[in-house]
């Protein structure tokens, strides 16, 4: 449903938050082995729905922390962000892309069929031991993890704690401007901060929490292959989701599509 920024009543926002809190108590964040429908959302597409295509956009289903400030979980922006992004891939590249996204838990063996996985709100990860070991194996085999939409030092701390459980000896580094991921398809001169839709439409600032400066960080394997791309203090998912909103600044969507496509091309070519 498209709403113009000025039409969002404040009361509705409060009511939505309350509903989210209630729903999160009644329906905890999806645990291991579950790709069932998130509360209040349309059911996850059946696994066999996507016909065999070279690339399928996969959203990771993970164990989250539950309600924390605003409600954040694996299904933030899903499914519209995914499907909008898929349209962009199909239109802007010749990558044969499945029409529909898939949502797969880290612990599901099916995830190894898809070497690219997207995980949102990673600042709210609460990974079980099984998720940690499965994700580790996934990355070591050659999988690529695209992390997005988490803000501030508190969320970074949580994410880092979990990613270091997955990859204990990893080095997390800011990717230099000449890194191939910024040039393998589009040339991206600089990392910019993509705000959430609310801030983009109604505020004159783009940050959340204390996440003032956007970062694009990465973890590479021993051979130098980037296997985890970490978009911190920026929200690419919202830019994909609201790219069709006339009031949503095009520069954010452009950046989000470019970086997202670059990440996929990088994962398929490096």
């Amino acid at each position: 449903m498209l709403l113009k920024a000025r039409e969002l009543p404040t009361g509705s926002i409060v009511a939505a938050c309350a509903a989210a809190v209630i729903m999160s108590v009644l329906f905890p964040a999806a645990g291991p082995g579950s790709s069932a429908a998130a509360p209040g959302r349309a059911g996850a597409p059946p696994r066999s729905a996507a016909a065999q295509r070279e690339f399928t956009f996969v959203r990771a289903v993970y164990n989250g922390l539950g309600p924390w400030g605003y409600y954040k979980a694996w299904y933030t922006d899903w499914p519209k962000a995914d499907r909008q992004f898929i349209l962009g891939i199909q239109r802007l590249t010749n990558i044969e892309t499945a029409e529909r996204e898939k949502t797969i838990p880290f612990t599901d063996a099916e995830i190894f069929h898809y070497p690219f996985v997207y995980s949102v709100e990673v600042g709210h990860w609460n990974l079980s031991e099984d998720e940690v070991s499965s994700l580790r194996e996934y990355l070591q085999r050659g999988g690529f993890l695209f992390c997005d939409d988490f803000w501030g030092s508190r969320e970074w701390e949580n994410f880092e704690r979990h990613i270091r459980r997955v990859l204990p000896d990893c080095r997390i580094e800011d990717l230099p401007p000449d890194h191939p991921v910024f040039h393998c398809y589009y040339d991206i001169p600089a990392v910019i901060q993509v705000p959430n839709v609310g801030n983009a439409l109604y505020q004159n600032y783009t940050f959340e929490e204390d996440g003032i400066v956007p970062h694009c960080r990465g973890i590479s394997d021993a051979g130098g292959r980037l296997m985890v791309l970490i978009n911190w203090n920026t929200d690419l998912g919202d830019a994909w989701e609201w790219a069709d909103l006339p009031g949503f600044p095009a520069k954010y969507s452009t950046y989000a599509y470019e970086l997202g496509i670059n990440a996929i091309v990088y994962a398929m070519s490096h």
Partner: protein
Amino acid sequence: MPPGPLAAPCGACGRMAMTALFEFLFKYRPIIYEKGSLAFHPVLPWLWLAAAVPAAVLLAYLLYRRTRGIVSGRTRAVLTALRAVPLLVLLAVLMQPVLLLHSVIPQKSFVAVAYDASRSMEIRDAGGGRSRMEEVARLLDASSRPLAELGARFQLRFFRVAHGAERVEGFQPPARRGNVTDLETALEQVTAEMGNAPLSGILLLTDGADNRSRDLDAAAERLRAKRIPVYPVGIGSSDIARDAEVLRVGAPRRVLKNALIEAEVTVGARGYAGRRTRLSVKQGESVLQSREITLGADDEVKTYKVTFACEGTGPKVFTFHIEPFGDELIPENNDGQALVRVEDAQPKILYVEGEPRWIYGFMRRAAAEDKNLALITLLRQAEGKLYRQGVESGEVLKRGFPLDKPELYRFKALILGSIEASFFSFDQLRLISDFVSERGGGFLMLGGRNSFGQGGYANTPLEDVLPVGLRGDSGEGVAPMEREAQFRARLTGYGLSHPITRIAADEQENRKRWEAAAPLVGYNPTAGAKPGATVLATVDLGSGAAADPVLLAFQRFGRGRSVALTTDAVWRWRMEHESRDNFHELFWKQMLRWLVADVPDQLTLESERHSYAPGEGVTLRAEARDEAFLSLNDAQVTAAVRTPSGRTISLPFAWELRKEGAYAARFMPDEEGLYEVTAEFFREGKKVGTASTGFRVADSFEEYHAAAMNAGLLRRLAERSGGRYYTARDLSHLAEDISYVDSGSARIEEKDLWDMPVVYLVLVGSMVAEWILRKRKGLA
């Protein structure tokens, strides 16, 4: 192994018996008749004898004419013939037949006595536990009767032969046995050494295990023309009862560093059918690989494949050893050797992909782990957008896919992914075909939605290059890619041992790893493998179909080779195997290395063999081609030969008239050990490039291989040269036989034939037969 004549002992006895009978009947041995010519000294004029023959027959007829009516006509005819025979025999005796023989004047002619001094003469099969050389020593001892008789008639000159001939005084065992036997060269050198001396023949004591002569038959014919017969004496046993030997080792002469080296070891055995032993690969004293083998039946030759790895670079000598049995006669032939150059090179491979795909990225990662491969890729990310990776500079492939031979031929292999034929111009498709057939490059097409038939490659030059058909029998196209089909890769018999699919050095381990490989999804149907192609793996859909679709196949095409992998899902062998499982990496390493193996460089240098015995000359051959791989006939080639002791010798090459772009040089090494040769190529004063090779000079055990006494070769040598073959046991007539030759200083000798026992037998026999028949018919 020359087959041992199981009936040899019986055959020899039979021949001796026949010879004795012949001599009894005809007074002289068969060889006398072979060497002589018939002549007559009639006691009466010829005219009288000519008239006497019909007169004798008429007389016999008239004598039996009166029996007409008493006996039948046929009986009368037989009696007439029997009466005529004695008369005719008497007439023949009156003609005084003689055999004319050329016989040497004693001590006016020479005989060259040449004895084999090669390593095979150390084998102890000459009877009585003696070695072959000891048998020669016994035969050539001063007290030996055959030698004494020979010495009474001829002047003897002694030679020691192996690779060539060396003049000696009498029998002198050599300090060092010869590494090879070259009877052709030896006989030529003996003849040359004897010069214009009247040579009645060459007595050659040898086991006949010749392993170097180029054309011994022609050499024998030349000796016959010079009237110098050869009298070989076979020393040793032609039937070695118990022996296993390495007949041949086939190994690549060059491999990339860290390659799995596959060698084929050909083994022959006698007396050990079905016995098991171990075949090991050693480098120095280190055993690199070992496997159990089962030996074949007598005279059956079996080939065993053994795969091993080695460390380091440079020339490596590997020994392939069969564990000997305790009762083996010749354990020295249980080893074979190969010299392999391990090169730290980076052959270039070009991979062109039509769309971003997982196989592309995963293959690049696997190739990146192999430091001895340079994978350069061209990825079409969108229409008109090409992404180059692995290029040395921005100029490489700047125009996209190469447009001419120099640009494409710098690669050794080409891989096409899911990219339709229409992406290329027709000239580029023709260029790819020439890349394989003319340049000798490796080619691989991967499965995909724009590959094979679906990619429109039917009716293009690449249709012939591919090892699989793209059209059915009636010319219809093949079905589109089966995107949803789930299957397993099933290796064929060839696939189990082929280098591409060699994931593990051990065959059983390799089979297990393939059986545990993850299932794949999606393949391109084809019209099946072409007649000349080899299928290494098929698509196992689990449906129990009689013929599974081709998954992996290859064929030779011109000077190069072409591979079809009809799926693009092999990246699942990475994502669906545990992270420590390197199946996927090994698969690509093996595939890519095989694609570039033996692909020729622009400039090449090789020695004819990898190993030489001391004293043998080495021939080096170089080939020069330009960037389009056209032969260069105007290059200047000079090599620097580095000896084992560190000296460097300059060696200029000469252009070979008979072959385009080929140059040769000959070198005589004077040290044992490893030699390194580096050739520089110049054209119009500018250096074009270099090429290197190496060879080894070492004592060879070649003499112990195929070491049974080769009676067949020696008989043929004798026959073609006009001589006669002898064994060590039947030398009693040797001196006499050699005496009857029309060479050297000879005289004419006459031998009477009228008093042959057969004459009396015929005479008496016919008279007795006539008497018996008369009595039976009631005649007086």
